[in-house]
């Protein structure tokens, strides 16, 4: 139940973010969500798109270095303590969260958050055992379309 995330290296200067976005737009690829981790010198753009293989091809053709990483998307109840519940489960199994970011849309009044754990498989098993819904790529794309 993991999904593919594209990540790319960007220099931290004006205009660098718009180029990959424009490339994907021209290819008719919608960005479901993204995050930018930045340092003073550079940024790492992380993208979730419906057709990651096509998007990767477009970006690489333009000269970007693109990595594919597996991440975990979970539903989080959109109320106080929703995220804390998930984090406690992860803490219990002794995992680290490398980074996380949220989707722009909700599913059934629940927020969707993307996680990169240091071990995604253990995380998925632990979350599901506690009844947390881990959302697959296809399912998400379908919902996003609605």
């Amino acid at each position, binding site marked *: 139940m993991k999904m593919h*995330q594209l*990540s*790319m*290296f*960007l*220099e931290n200067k004006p205009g*660098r973010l718009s180029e990959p976005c424009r490339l994907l737009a021209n290819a008719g690829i919608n960005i479901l969500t993204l995050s930018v*981790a930045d*340092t003073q*010198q*550079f940024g*790492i753009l*992380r993208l979730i798109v419906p057709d990651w293989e096509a998007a990767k091809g477009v970006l690489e053709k333009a*000269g*970007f*270095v*693109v*990595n594919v*990483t597996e991440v975990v998307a979970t539903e989080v109840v959109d109320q106080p303590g929703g995220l804390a519940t998930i984090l406690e489960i992860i803490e219990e199994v002794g995992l680290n969260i*490398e*980074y996380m970011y949220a989707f722009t849309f909700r599913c059934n009044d629940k927020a969707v958050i993307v996680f*990169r754990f240091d071990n995604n498989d253990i995380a998925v098993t632990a979350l599901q055992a506690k009844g947390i819904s881990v959302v697959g790529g296809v399912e998400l794309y379908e919902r996003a379309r609605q």
Partner: protein
Amino acid sequence: MSEFWHDAGCVFHPVSAPDYLPETQLKQLQLHRLRAVVQRSYDHVALFRERMQGKGITPEDIRQLEDIQHLPFTVKTDLRDTYPFGLFASPMNEIVRMHASSGTTGKPIVVAYTQEDLRVWSSVMVRCFAAAGLDRGDIIQNAYGYGLFTGGLGAHYGAEALGATVIPISGGNTDRQIMLLKDFGATAICCTPSYFLRILERAPELGVNLRDLPLKAGIFGAEPWTDEMRKRIEPEANIKAYDIYGLSEIIGPGVANECSAQDGLHIFEDHFYPEIVDPETLQPVPDGEEGELVLTTLSKQAMPMIRYRTRDITTLYKEKCSCGRTVRRMRRIARRSDDMFIIRGVNVFPSQIEEALLAVEGTAPHYQIVLTNDGTMDDVEVQVEVSPEAFSDKVSVMEGLRKKLSASIERVVNIRVNVRLVEPNKIARSEGKAKRLIDNRKK
């Protein structure tokens, strides 16, 4: 007589006498010494003897000064290839000192001196100081680094031989430099010009106005600098800024120095025979034309250098100088014939940077070295393209890579550089080969 020298803005020191030799006498002395040093190298340095034999010549073939053109060149890699002692022409029990400078493979370039070599070295340094108007009674703050680098000890013993008072403060610790300049009342300072600019900027922050101090002269070298820097330094510090030239392979500082005319550097030709060659064809070019400076040590015992290619581009000229010296002058070093650059007094080759990057990544990434100057200090930035193999979606991994590259470069070249990760294909390639060095320092 001594009044004449003072009127000319110079100090006459007896050791400086060879600076004023008539041309014919100088040439006789040069030929005599050239023949001796060629014989010495031939007898004791295998590499040189083999090259002479390869050319089918013997020391007896050197009959006039112009015959020097038949001798083989020596290049920096010869010092590396024979590391550590392969070019020594004296047995160890006659060698009293060694120095070393950074080399391209992490192995340093080693140089050696006999007692007599050290005496000659001190004497040429005295001639440098005298040309800059310094004498007994002057207080010289020596901010060149002491140690394996030739700058510190070279200037130190020269200043002592002059009879001046030496403050052997070595490099660094700018606040203490400024405190001692003020408290000890140094009349001259020896350091790299970029370091003096640092002192110049820092002094007002400490409430010190350099213009109010007894400081009157700076002997600036170990890196190329410009007349623009002189125009800035002189009025701001109320001193005269003199250019000194030298290199470890030849002796260290003391090969040439500016005089009061500040119009080119007088080469101490009785010890260092200069030629200018076309760096492409290696053919000699006449006085007045630009080319690569080639130096032969005429009196060196422990490690003679025959036709050493300095890679420094300059021009020689022999028009009589207003200071009265007859030895030829060379223009300020403007550039080099290879990509080597000098930063904060340290020689760096792009190949060293490449080696350091290779050590971290396993493969050499595309990179570019950008030199800048913020008006005070030279700065180096190494831009490295992020390869697909090296890229990670984790910031910590990328920051870690950047730090590892930076540390690796520092280990190889001994200076701190900024590493900037850049996007792939951002570094321009010409004919598939990237231009490695971009020098954006203000000339």
